[in-house]
């Protein structure tokens, strides 16, 4: 009996430490990536909107050459923009097309975020459940009545 409880405890701890917690870390990292993408997209949208509103057709900006060294750059025509659509493909959009594309992508990202957040909460719930199990296994021999009362609740 005692040995069996020990085994259960060990199993639960292993599930928490090696399975659930690592999964949690992974999913949180992927969610952060999605958040970042969302931020990049929203920045781009804001930039394009300001360009659209002000009717700017040429642009001067600074380009990061790497290691925080910048050089001035000139864009003669801002009406056309190339956008990364994934897998190394770039599509030439007009500004309005780009804005539509961005809004679509933002929708997708919102969905993804919801999914991932659901997964995270699921993992967290499982961890809590496992903790509860451990608590019960530890408490059962000591205070039988209290744990049974808890079960009743």
């Amino acid at each position, binding site marked *: 009996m005692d040995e069996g409880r020990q085994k259960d405890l060990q199993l639960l701890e292993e599930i928490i430490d090696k399975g659930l917690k690592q999964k949690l870390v992974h999913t949180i990292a992927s969610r952060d990536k999605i958040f970042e993408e969302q931020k990049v997209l929203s920045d*781009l949208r804001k930039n*394009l909107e300001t360009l659209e509103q002000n009717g700017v057709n040429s*642009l001067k900006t600074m*380009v990061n050459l790497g290691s925080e060294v910048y050089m001035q*750059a000139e864009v003669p025509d801002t009406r056309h*923009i190339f956008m990364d659509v994934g897998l190394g493909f*770039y599509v030439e959009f007009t500004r309005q097309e780009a804005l539509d594309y961005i809004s679509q992508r933002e929708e997708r990202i919102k969905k993804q975020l919801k999914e991932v957040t659901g997964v995270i909460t699921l993992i967290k719930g499982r961890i809590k459940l496992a903790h509860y199990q451990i608590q019960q296994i530890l408490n059962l021999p000591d205070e039988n009545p209290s744990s049974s009362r808890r079960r009743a609740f």
Partner: protein
Amino acid sequence: MEPPTKGTVTPIASLFSEEEARKAAIYVEEKIGEKREAMNRLQQFVDENANLINLVAKLPDQLHHNVMVPLGKLAFFPGRLIHTNEFKVLLGENYYADRTSKQTIGVLSRRDKTLQSQIRSLKAEIEDFQTEASFFTATASEAAEGLIEIREDYVEEDSSPTVLQSGAKEPSDLPGGETAVGEVEDDEFARIMSRLNELEMEEEQEGEDGDDRDEKHDSPIEIEEESEHDMVKGIRGETDHNKFMEQETGVSVPKKASGHSSSILLIQPRSKGKVIEVLPEKQPYKDIDDLLNQCIGPKTQYLPKDQTRGGIPQQNAGTWRDFQATSAVSRAKPKTNVVGQQKIESPIQKPEPKSETNKAFTGLIVEHDHNLQTNTHRQMQSSGSQPSKPVSRFMAQRR
């Protein structure tokens, strides 16, 4: 007291279990991995930096370059780089500086240097960790093999028996009425006393050696005696402070007799052979007699003494210089101390001829030294007379 067990034998496995050592080794290996990662990152920076230097060097070759100008990470505009010899370089803390291509290359190469030094330090750290890891693995394998550590306290063999003996003796000599606790302390006390006795014996032996040394180049003590003369003579010049003078001589006589009796005896033959002919007045005992005479009937003898004082050094300036040389060689240290003393004394010597100052200087050197050596004697005999001495001499000089 039973002799303690000679040493302890502990198997290394009990000190460091094999498992623990292995764990430590694994831990250190992990650390090495972390450091390696950091170093790889730094290496990447270095590569980037090198690429950038190439790029920056090439950019001003043309007036403008057609590039895709990024707008965020996802979007690009077709555009071109303009003002190809103007760079904005981050200095840190969000400050940017406008630099030319060459200046930018300078900045980047300086960055490269710091990166290289960081990599070097990381490499050293990794090496440290590697030796640590190898040590841990070695310990683990040793523990696995069942190696034994033998530890034995080092006990001084010659001291322990005497300690025990004296410890047995001395408490019995001491008056009774000691408690059990006191005995333990007595044991310790006896041990300390026996150690002290040993040290004293050693010191005595050394002291004999030291006397021999004195005999070899005894000029120091010889001159000490001379200087004593000078000092006393200087005091003698001053009549008002007769009392001080008497004190002084009173002090110096017993000191000579007691403190340096052995050395004086040793010196005497030599000084007779060499010095007495040229400096008959300087023979120590005679001098002491003189001093004693002065104490009894002071004022009458001052005049001849002062005369001799003026005369002798001039005659024997050469020998004095010899003395000076030997004393200077044998006592390089005290000489530095004397500088202050010499300054103080210089007014005394001014009216006298040059050879006299030479002589007086040597005398003063040693005089000072002498004071240092016999300081404790004086303090024990009469601490009050010492401070009075310099005062009286100054006063004498002013008159």
